[in-house]
């Protein structure tokens, strides 16, 4: 390998590190502030990273699913990357806050995590820490929204999506958004209006969530990257629930398991079709 992509101490907490000199590998760290998923740097679109040479990437168990996703969708050959796994006891939702891991600061996706051991990794580092603190409110929030009248839910989402400035940071931060040319950038025809307008915002967020349906690895990077705090994790989580309940699919770090939108069963549920 020629470059190790990991985390190092920076002026405001941890930051991604690209280590090309074995001596500086000592500066690599891993703790609960390493929320960022580093797998997007492996995307073929990141030519500036690809130029550094054959990569090794440090992954948490959840991030390993992104490596598997890229391999599954032929964006990456498994033998072209060295995967260094770290055993994870949960990460904080906002690493820049510099607060310790607690039920109040833990990322919403961590409680109940089943991917703490990175099975896909070539090398696994560290002892298994205690499990992440409990207390995710995400599923409860989804259930709460589903109890509302459609009109109230529409109003809620219009307000949330109305803040969108269409910076597409959610797309850039996502390990599974690797299209060379995104449908949102196409202008002839223009499927997604590019200005931050309710029409275009709705079309973009429907598109983003649907394109992640059954593919999202639940790393939470889209929500963390969002400058206006749109709860994108709720949309991703909702579709993950659909994938699990209707098609028995859970995010996995096994590249051989097909994604639910790329496969079908003849007896899939179809109660919604007349």
């Amino acid at each position: 390998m020629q470059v190790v992509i990991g985390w190092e101490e920076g002026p405001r907490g941890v930051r991604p590190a690209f280590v090309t000199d074995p001596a500086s590998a000592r500066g690599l760290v891993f703790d609960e502030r390493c929320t960022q998923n580093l797998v997007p740097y492996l995307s073929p679109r990141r030519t500036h990273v690809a130029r550094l040479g054959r990569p090794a990437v440090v992954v948490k168990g959840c991030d390993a699913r992104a490596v598997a996703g890229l391999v599954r969708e032929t964006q990456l050959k498994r033998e072209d990357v060295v995967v260094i796994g770290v055993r994870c006891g949960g990460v904080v939702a906002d690493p820049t806050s510099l607060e310790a891991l607690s039920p109040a600061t833990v990322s919403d996706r961590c409680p109940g995590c089943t991917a703490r051991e990175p099975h896909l990794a070539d090398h696994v580092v560290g002892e298994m820490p205690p499990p992440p603190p409990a207390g995710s409110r995400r599923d409860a929030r989804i259930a709460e929204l589903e109890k509302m009248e459609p009109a109230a839910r529409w109003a809620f989402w219009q307000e949330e999506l109305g803040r969108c400035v269409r910076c597409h940071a959610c797309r850039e931060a996502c390990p599974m958004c690797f299209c060379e040319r995104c449908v949102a950038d196409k202008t002839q025809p223009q499927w997604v209006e590019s200005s931050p307008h309710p029409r275009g915002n709705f079309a973009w967020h429907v598109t983003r969530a649907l394109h992640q349906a059954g593919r999202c690895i639940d790393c939470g990077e889209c929500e963390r990257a969002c400058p206006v705090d749109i709860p994108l994790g709720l949309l991703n989580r909702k579709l993950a629930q659909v994938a699990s309940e209707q098609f028995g699919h859970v995010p996995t770090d096994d590249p051989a398991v097909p994604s639910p939108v790329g496969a079908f069963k003849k007896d899939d549920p179809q109660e919604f079709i007349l």
Partner: protein
Amino acid sequence: MHATLDKESPFEPRLTAFVCNWCTYTGADLAGTSRLQMDANVRIVRLPCTGRIDPLFIVKAFERGADGVIVSGCHPADCHYTSGNYHARRRFAFFKELVEFLGLPEGRITFSWVSASEGQKWREVVNDATARVRALGPFAAYPGTALPSFPAASPADAAKGAAR
């Protein structure tokens, strides 16, 4: 076409139907050649297969002023391309759950399987979908922003669209 519109109702919905060429379009054609009377609120867009229907088509239809959408194709195991409808079924399972979670009322989008011999069923799908959307009222989610380019059936229809 306008003879069958309900003159008593203050609101006549506009529905866009995305149908596959091999089953539902032929079924709708059969309904026509059989002289079945049905609501004239539906504009049909013919596509090769339900597998060709990107959910963005539906979003776009609503953007451009549709009050409701029908998506229809071949019954499972009848797809002209073997598996297009199976893939579409999964895609629309996700799409339906997503847009309902985002607050779109359930009756605005109708999914159905209509075969080439089911002209009668097509009529029921059209009438039922139109009735549901008529009850829900206009899709005014983006008030004042409807684009003028939704194909109008007649000058009267166009005037109605401009008034919204």
